């Protein structure tokens, strides 16, 4: 429990900053909504000028852009980007810390198994990730309501926030495994940023081409507009996400518990 507490607190300050960044992103987009809702057709014509690939990348659906949640879907793609960069960075950061800061001799000479260290560190970061997604969801919903948009479909909103959480946990687990495979992670944020942008662009350009390609495009696992229209999260992709997360965590556990503590 002491390792969990220690690691949780270490990351908490960063977590507040990431939460603030996500809330700020949302607030900026929402501030523009009143202007958009007053001239939906004009806004659509601006967006129509964008190439379709860019529209896809930005999560734009011209038919739905006039509704609050349709507009939020566009905002969501940016929120997801920020949230996933945060969680991927945490993934790259947490298990590589001892190697980066050379604190391995301190931690691994304590009377605690590597297995316990792994779960304590992973759990501490997962709680930070969940806390971020939860607080961002609650604060943003509060802003929705405070902005006089009480009519927002809560179920659809909650499902979209669940997607955010799933994506964040998925990127966290991906960062975790990659940090162990790559080794010597000097700047976790650079790795997190690169991973998320690479998969974001891949998802936008290739994610809809075929089922196989979609498997490698996490930002295309869930169709936000299906969620808005039908409150539907595709079960098969939900299961696939869960399976990926479990496999990535399991793989990370196996590698971490077999690793040695190097000084350099």
């Amino acid at each position, binding site marked *: 429990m002491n390792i969990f507490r220690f690691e949780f607190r270490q990351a908490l300050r960063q977590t507040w900053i990431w939460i603030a960044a996500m809330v700020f992103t949302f607030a900026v987009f929402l501030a523009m909504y009143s202007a958009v809702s007053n001239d939906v057709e004009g806004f659509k014509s601006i967006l129509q000028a964008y190439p379709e690939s860019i529209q896809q990348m930005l999560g734009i659906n011209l038919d739905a852009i006039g509704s609050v949640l349709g507009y939020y879907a566009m905002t969501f793609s940016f929120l997801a980007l920020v949230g996933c960069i945060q969680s991927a960075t945490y993934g790259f950061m947490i298990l590589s810390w001892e190697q980066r*800061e050379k604190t*391995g*001799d*301190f931690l691994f*000479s304590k*009377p*605690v198994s590597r297995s316990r260290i792994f779960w304590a560190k992973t759990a501490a970061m997962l709680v930070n990730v969940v806390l971020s997604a939860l607080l961002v969801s609650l604060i943003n919903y509060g802003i929705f309501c405070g902005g006089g948009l009480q009519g927002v479909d809560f179920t659809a909103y909650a499902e979209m926030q669940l997607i955010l959480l799933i994506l964040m946990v998925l990127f966290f687990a991906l960062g975790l495994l990659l940090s162990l495979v790559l080794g010597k992670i000097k700047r976790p944020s650079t790795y997190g940023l690169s991973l998320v942008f690479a998969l974001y662009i891949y998802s936008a350009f290739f994610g809809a081409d075929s089922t196989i390609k979609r498997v490698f495009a996490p930002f295309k696992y869930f169709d936000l507009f299906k969620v808005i229209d039908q409150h539907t999260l595709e079960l098969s992709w939900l299961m696939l996400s869960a399976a990926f997360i479990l496999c990535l965590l399991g793989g990370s556990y196996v590698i971490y518990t077999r690793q040695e*503590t190097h000084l350099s």
Partner: protein
Amino acid sequence: MAVIELTNLTKSYGKNRGIEDVNLKIESGEIFGFIGPNGAGKSTTIRTMLGLLKPTRGKALIFGKDVNLEPSIKASIGYLPSEVFYYDHMRVSDLLKYSASFYGKDCSKRIDELCDILDLDVHRKIEDLSFGNRKKVGIVQGLLHEPQLIILDEPTSGLDPLMQKRFFELIQGEHQKGATVFFSSHILSEVQRLCNRVAFVKDGSLIQVASLAELQKNTFKRVLLEAAVPFDLDDFNQDCFSHADRTTTGVHFIYNGSINDLVTFMQRYSLTNAEISEPDLEEIFMAYYGGEASK
């Protein structure tokens, strides 16, 4: 039961040598010195013994248990690594509290005592500490839980002479309370001062394990010979002689072998003076390692 028992302990880094077939048994209550030049394998042995590195072959038991299988045994071990790295942004007091939290007992009194002895300011951040002060943090965090086995890897580097003195008193105090001490160093005077038994390690292998008294009295002798006629240094070009050098009136060297053979050898010369004395550990060390230790 031995406190430390290493059996054919081997660690290779790919094709590179680490340590090879290290066999060692250290009994309870010993202060054991582990001596060797830089790169000889001292830290590798310690880190493999502590489970920080996985052995390629062989096994290391501490209090009869493998630390990889039973990490709880590390609660009885205090370890000071040769290079101390901690969480830089933390205050010393927070780091020590975090370290103490692993042992499930209140270590605050002992932390205060150790910080007083070592004159350590616990309110400062780790990143603001000098190397010597970081070393003090390392010593406190290694001893705060009053371990039964203390493993020290090059412990005095960075400490000033006053702190070294206090540190040795501290270790001797822990020893008197019943702790076993395993102490790696290449500073022989401190090993000589503290240890009952030593092991020499060279190129990853143990080359000699002996009590300090045995080492100093039984085999090695410091010899000074003086004669009217200058000595031919080629005469000393044998395995039993090392570090032969001329003085103004004679020659001095370290001899390792039978004392009767030495007397026979000395009879070849018309000597004006001969002195045979006990070498210090440094001279024995140099005899073992030849020129490489001074490189």
